[in-house]
Structure formats: structure tokens, C-alpha cells
């Protein structure tokens, strides 16, 4: 359902949750009108009806009313709670990234957006996506804060140096939409934008075909993994490999030496390549060398993509690993540090 097209005041509405945001907006406008009209009418009515008829009159005294005060405290409170709930529901939708989304990587930089697709296409300040597919953006920045904003999709998120932030959307209508940088980032902040092209799947495939620049990230990652960086010397697979098993780990919980578990998300894989011994997988020695300084940011993206692809073509063991409780990330991270302190002092 799209509420936008017939109201010229609304921007394009082109994602699955944009109607929800519009509906929430409409609801709030409704509430605003419902409060504004009576109050303004009352003000005008009182101001005119009870206008000063005699200088220095002393109109009848009136005392406050507890009943009224209670009523007009509770009603706004209840209404504001509905606003909060509405917002919370939409927010949940906006920030809960679905699992089956197509990956796109975004790096912000003063003042351009560098974007790479899961299939290897790179673009700058443009983003091509197919209609009807869920797209997940994994984003970071090389310098200051930026904000990836697509009004037509009703979503945006800051990109923060030193961290990944995520957002997702599913476009519903082919077209060309504005892409902005919405967090002030210096001189050319207002120039740091471009377009999002939403295309039918067929057109998108054509675009992909016409634009292939050598390898997809997965291919490139595979190449790096097997030949260029020699990861395969330890992670070749098979029974007695030295390195941890990488098939099927993505988004599963990994048990670490010391008992903690972490979820193998992009950041974790990235860290495993850059700081292997920070989080050592249970049952292995911390022998993996770091690749920091040897791999570029883009190669990292490819490696991560490749390792994720290893989880795509499945592995039976992932079942057993997934058995570990899922809700660990925040709890484990914060509680883990001190808990085994006793061991440390033995």
C-alpha cells in the first residue's frame, strides 16, 4: 500500500516500510490537528467573546480544577504512549536486518560514497538495487561521521569511524531516488550525495552484466584466500587442518577459548583476519598470523564476502554450533571480562 502518490506533499515512497512511516506521520498530523484546532479555536473564541469591555474590569475569580488537570494530563500521556509505540514498531522494522538480504558495502569518505556490491560492482555516489529484494548495507567511514540517507526509502543511518553500522531496505518501485549525506561532515557536505536506482530484476541483471569489473567479491575473495594470501594453507578444509573450520560459521555462534561465545558476523570475521588472537576459537592454537597491513579495506570486504559464501553452500556442523544460545552478544561482551578473574590468579 502506498499512501504517498496522491499527496504532493509527500516524497516518493519506494520501500516496504515507507508506508509505515507515512502512516505514522499521518497519525501524528492527525493528533496535531486534533489538538491545534480546538486550542486555537478556543483561544480565538475566548479572546473575542471575553474581550475587554471595560478598562480594569475584575472578572469573576475562578479556581483551578483538579479534575480538569488530571484529565488533561492523562489524555496527552496516553496519546503520547501510542505515538511512542507506533514509533517503536516502525523503528524495529527499520533496524532489524533480515537474514536473507543481499549485501552491499558502503564506505563513506569526505565527500563521497564508495559502494561495492556483493557481486563485485563498484560504484561511487550511486547505488543500483533491484526491486523487491532485501538489501543490507554494511557501512563505515574513513574519516568523520556521515549519514547514508535515502528519503524515498524513509531510512538513514550514521556511519561512524571505527565501527560498522547497518541498515536495510526493500525497494518497491523502480525509479531514481535521492541519496544524501545527512550528517554534517565538512566543506562539501551538501555535495556528498547521488542517486539510488531501483530497477526491475531483469534490468538489474543487465546492469550487472554490463558493468562487471573482473571478479565478484566472492571470486576475488576466493582468489585471495586460495592463492594470493595463502589462507588455504591452514583453512583448506578437511580433517586435520590447522585452522578453524570456516564453512558455515557465518552468523552462528562461535565458542572461544575461555568459554565466551561470539556471533560470527562481519565485524568478527574482519577482526579474525586482522587480530586473529584476540578471539581464538576453542580447540585451536593461536597460530594464525595477522593480516593487518597486508590486506586493503576492499580485499577485506572480498574475504568477508567469500567466507560468508562458504556458509551459503552449507555445512552440517553448523547445526551443532547454532545450538549455543543466541542472545549472547551484549551479555557476553560485557560480563565476560571479569567473570573468569579467578582463573587469572591461579
Amino acid at each position, binding site marked *: 500500500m502506498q499512501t504517498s502518490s496522491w499527496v504532493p506533499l509527500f516524497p516518493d515512497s519506494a520501500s516496504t516500510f515507507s508506508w509505515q512511516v507515512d502512516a505514522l506521520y499521518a497519525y501524528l498530523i492527525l493528533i496535531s490537528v486534533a489538538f491545534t484546532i480546538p486550542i486555537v479555536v478556543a483561544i480565538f473564541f475566548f479572546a473575542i467573546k471575553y474581550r475587554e469591555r471595560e478598562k480594569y474590569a475584575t472578572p469573576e475569580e475562578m479556581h483551578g480544577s483538579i479534575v480538569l488537570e488530571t484529565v488533561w494530563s492523562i489524555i496527552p500521556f496516553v496519546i503520547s504512549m501510542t505515538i511512542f509505540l507506533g514509533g517503536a514498531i516502525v523503528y524495529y522494522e527499520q533496524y532489524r536486518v533480515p537474514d536473507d538480504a543481499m549485501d552491499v558495502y558502503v564506505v563513506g569518505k569526505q565527500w563521497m560514497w564508495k559502494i561495492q556490491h556483493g557481486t563485485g560492482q563498484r560504484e561511487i555516489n550511486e547505488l543500483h538495487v533491484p526491486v523487491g529484494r532485501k538489501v543490507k548495507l554494511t557501512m563505515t567511514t574513513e574519516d568523520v561521521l556521515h549519514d547514508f540517507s535515502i528519503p524515498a526509502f524513509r531510512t538513514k543511518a550514521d556511519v561512524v569511524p571505527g565501527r560498522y553500522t547497518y541498515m536495510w531496505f526493500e525497494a518497491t518501485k523502480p525509479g531514481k531516488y535521492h541519496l544524501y549525506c545527512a550528517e554534517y561532515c565538512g566543506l562539501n557536505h551538501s555535495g556528498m550525495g547521488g542517486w539510488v536506482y531501483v530497477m526491475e530484476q531483469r534490468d538489474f541483471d543487465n546492469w550487472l552484466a554490463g558493468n562487471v569489473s573482473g571478479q565478484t567479491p566472492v571470486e576475488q575473495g576466493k582468489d585471495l584466500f586460495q592463492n594470493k594470501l595463502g589462507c588455504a594453507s591452514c583453512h583448506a578444509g578437511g580433517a586435520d587442518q590447522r585452522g578453524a573450520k570456516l564453512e558455515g560459521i557465518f552468523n552462528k555462534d562461535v565458542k572461544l577459548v575461555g568459554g565466551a561465545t561470539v556471533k560470527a558476523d562481519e565485524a568478527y570475521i574482519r577482526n579474525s583476519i586482522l*587480530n586473529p588472537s*584476540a578471539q581464538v576459537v576453542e580447540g585451536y592454537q593461536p597460530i*594464525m598470523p*595477522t593480516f593487518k597491513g597486508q590486506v586493503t579495506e576492499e580485499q577485506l570486504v572480498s574475504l568477508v564476502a567469500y567466507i560468508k559464501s562458504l556458509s551459503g553452500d552449507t555445512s552440517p556442523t553448523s547445526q551443532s554450533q547454532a545450538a549455543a544460545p543466541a542472545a549472547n552478544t551484549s551479555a557476553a*561482551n560485557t560480563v565476560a571480562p571479569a567473570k573468569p*578473574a579467578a582463573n587469572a590468579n591461579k
Partner: protein
Amino acid sequence: MSSHADTHEEFHYHAPGLQHQFEDMKQQEESVSIGMWVFLVQEIMFFGGLFTAYLVFRSRFPMAFAAGSNHLDAFWGGLNTLVLIVSSLTMALTVYYAQKGNRNMQVVMIVLTMLFGTTFLGVKVIEYRDKYEHGLVPVQGWNKKVKEGEHKEAASVVLPFETRAFASEAQTEAPAVHHSNPKGEFQIDVEKDMKLPKMAEDGKFLTQAEQVGYYSNGKLDPEKFRDKVRIFFYIYFVMTGLHALHMIVGLGIMAWLLWMAWRNSFSIDYYMPVEMSGLYWHFVDIVWIFLFPLLYLLGRHFLH
């Protein structure tokens, strides 16, 4: 100031020190004391911002904080705590004698308070100097420059009850390579400091931020670890620096009090300035009461 106020004063009895806007001494005292307390609330929030920063970073990098803390000399810190406590006592006694109208004891106590306050700052200078010599000032170029390969000097003072591990190590051989900072950069004692995260690593109880933040090359990375220790020292210097600034201001107030007391300006009826300065002094003391354990005493037991 204004002529109006002056004529006003001619007609009314005015207690010494009563200002024109007040009706009587009680109102003035009440105003001044509320004013002072509200000012202290403001001060607490001012330091509060720093404590928040401390909290955030300590909860992320406990090991680096412990390592940084072990570079601080708990003896000097403890001594300074005692010095401040004594000065608090003499300050309290100043107020006590002011209430009693005892001018001579008042002067003595103020002098003592100032003496201890100065001692505190003196010790601070020794400590800062020590940090300077060991390359522990978090700012590049603000440290004593040591040439490549040169040994650093041994820690200045170690007392019998000083932490064993810390003391013995500081005085024996220090590894040469990591104690060279030709440009005066921040440096840490790798051997000693890295012990902590290593111990932690064995026990696997690093925080998530630490698991990411200390490592590269598949190992604990002294460079990266040093950055985190440097955050500790940054916070240390800002906090103790601001505290010292408050002490200096306090000494200024004391000097003024001394002058006033000397001239016998206070009496049983009028000693508000003494009491208010006392509140300020005690507040500065309280800040230190928290700074001491939070900065100087972290992770001592690890090295025991």
C-alpha cells in the same frame, strides 16, 4: 556603591560585613551558604563529566587502566591523600576557632592549611615530573627525550610497603628498546605493562573492546595497548590537573583569609567567609578522596 545605599546605611545599624541588599545578618548568612552549596553542586557536575568519561573508558579497557594505574606511585598518592586530610582537619579547626572568635588559633590553622595545601601541590609536581621523565605524559613532545637505546631511570621512590612486584621491577633492569622516545612521545614499559593483558589473556577475561583493541600481528600489540594506556594518562592528567587548579584557587582564597584574619576582620558574629572557604576546601578534598582509589589503586592485586 550608590549614593542611595550610602545614605541608607547612615540611618540603620549595620553589622560589620552586612551588605546593603540584606535586611539582617541571618539573611545574609543563609544566602551565602546556599550560594556556596549551589556552587558546589555545579562543581560536582563539572567533575562529573570527567567521571563519566572515566567510567566509559575504564569499563572498556580495564587492563590498560590497571597498567596505567600501576605507573602511578601509590605512595605519593596515598601520602597526598593524608596531606589533604590533615589540611581538611586544620581547615575545619579554622572554622571552629573562627566560631569561637579565637583570632590567633585561626591564623595558625590557616597557615597550617596553606602549608599542607602547598605540600600537596609540591608532591604533585614531583609526580608530574616523574611522569615527564618516564615518558608518561600523553602528549608527544612533552616528555623527556631519551635517545634510541638509552635506559630510562629507575622509579624515583619506592617504600617498603610499596607493591612488591611493581617496586622490584621498576628498579631492576628495564628493557632498553621500548624506553626510547627520541621525539618525546608517550611510551610504556612494555615488559611490565603487558603482563596484565597477558595474564588476562590466559584467563580469557578481556572485554570485547579489549579483544579487539589490544591486538595485531596475532599478538598483543604494544603500540595498540599503549594507545589505551595513553587514554588512561590523558584522563589522569585532566582530572588531577583540574583538581590541582582547584587547589591553587583554594590557596589563593586561603591567602586572602589569612590577610583578613590577621587584620582581625572576623568575629563571633561574622565569620561567613571562613566557613564558606572551608566548604570549598573540603569539596576539593572530597574530589581527591575519589581520585585516589580510582586512579592510583587499580589492579594492584594483579601484581601481588
